[in-house]
Each structure stands twice: as C-alpha cells, then as structure tokens.
C-alpha cells in the first residue's frame, strides 16, 4: 500500500513539474512548485515509513516550513514588481 502511494505521489510530482515547465504565466509556475513541495513533504513521510526509518519526519517538517516561506517570498517579489513576465498578458 505504501509503495502504491509512493508511485502515485511520484506521478503527481511529475505532472506538477510538467506544468511548471510549460505553464503560460508565472503564477502557474509558482502554483505548480507549491504543489510539488507539498507532495515532496508527503513523499518524504511515506518513504520514511516505507524504509522503516520514521526519523525522516523531521526532514518533512522542515521541508514544509521552507516550502511555505519560499512560496510567500516569491509571491511577494512578483506581486509588487513592475516588469512582470506574464505569458498570457491580456
């Protein structure tokens, strides 16, 4: 069951990476990277249980913190900057 979960998580991470590579606007990329980070937290937790080493949960916790802070930081940078790089600018 844990192996199935890890495979599904890897598939969804690949999908998010694809969207981050071909997303039209910068916000699509940020959204995909946010999703990727959350799935990484889950993958680290599941891998810790799969390998029988639940100490990995510390790394997952730190990764969740770093993910949130980095997304907020990048958004703060792009929200108030003048020269936006929007692919789908109306």
């Amino acid at each position, binding site marked *: *069951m*844990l192996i*199935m*979960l890890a495979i*599904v*998580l890897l*598939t*969804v991470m690949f*999908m*998010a990476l*694809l*969207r981050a590579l071909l997303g*039209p*606007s*910068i*916000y*699509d990329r*940020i*959204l*995909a990277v*946010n*999703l990727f980070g*959350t*799935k990484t*937290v*889950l993958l680290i*937790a*599941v891998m810790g*249980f799969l390998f029988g080493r*639940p100490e990995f*949960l*510390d790394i*997952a*916790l730190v990764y*969740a*913190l770093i*993910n*949130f802070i980095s*997304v*907020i930081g990048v*958004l703060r940078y*792009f*929200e108030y900057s003048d020269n*936006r790089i*929007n692919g*789908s*600018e*109306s």
Partner: protein
Amino acid sequence: MMELIIQLISSACFILGALLILSGGVGILRFPDFFTRMHAAGITETLATSLILIGLMLIAGWGLVLFKLVLILLFIMLTSPTASHALAKSAMHGKLTPIIHNNHSG
C-alpha cells in the same frame, strides 16, 4: 483483530488520498485557466494531505512519531490555504483575469 481493523482503515485512507491526489494532478495538467488550475490544486491538497497523514498516524501507533505527524498535519492545514489565498491575490493584482463564458441565454 484490532490490528487488522486499523490496517484496513489506514488502507482506505491511503486509497482515498491517492485518488484525490491523482485527480488534483490531472486537474493541474488539463484545466484551461490559471484560476481553475488553482481550484483543482488547492481543494484537493488539504483533504488528500490530511487523509494520507491520518493513514500514516494509524500505522505509527503512540509515540513521538505520532506527535511529529500531527505537527506536520497542523502546519500543512495552516499554510496551504494561506499560500492559495496569497497566490490568488497576487494573480488578481497581476492583471490575470479568469475566463468567463456567458453562454446561458438571458
């Protein structure tokens, strides 16, 4: 007997969470607009994460591992909607308008 029931509930949580995560991934890949993509990602993220973490908690049993899992669950429940809200606000400031179809007559 109790072990078997706990294992069964945890497996059900895993299957449901995997289904939700997969639907979120397909949604983020195939929806036409940024805001619909954000809807697909943001809705499935919280429920699927909590389901998978609850399944892991059921496996883990009492101890420090359970406390760490609760901490991760609490933190993700706090930060994921915040990140979604900040993303939507930033996209609205960035002049990214949603697609609006007015197809119904009237």
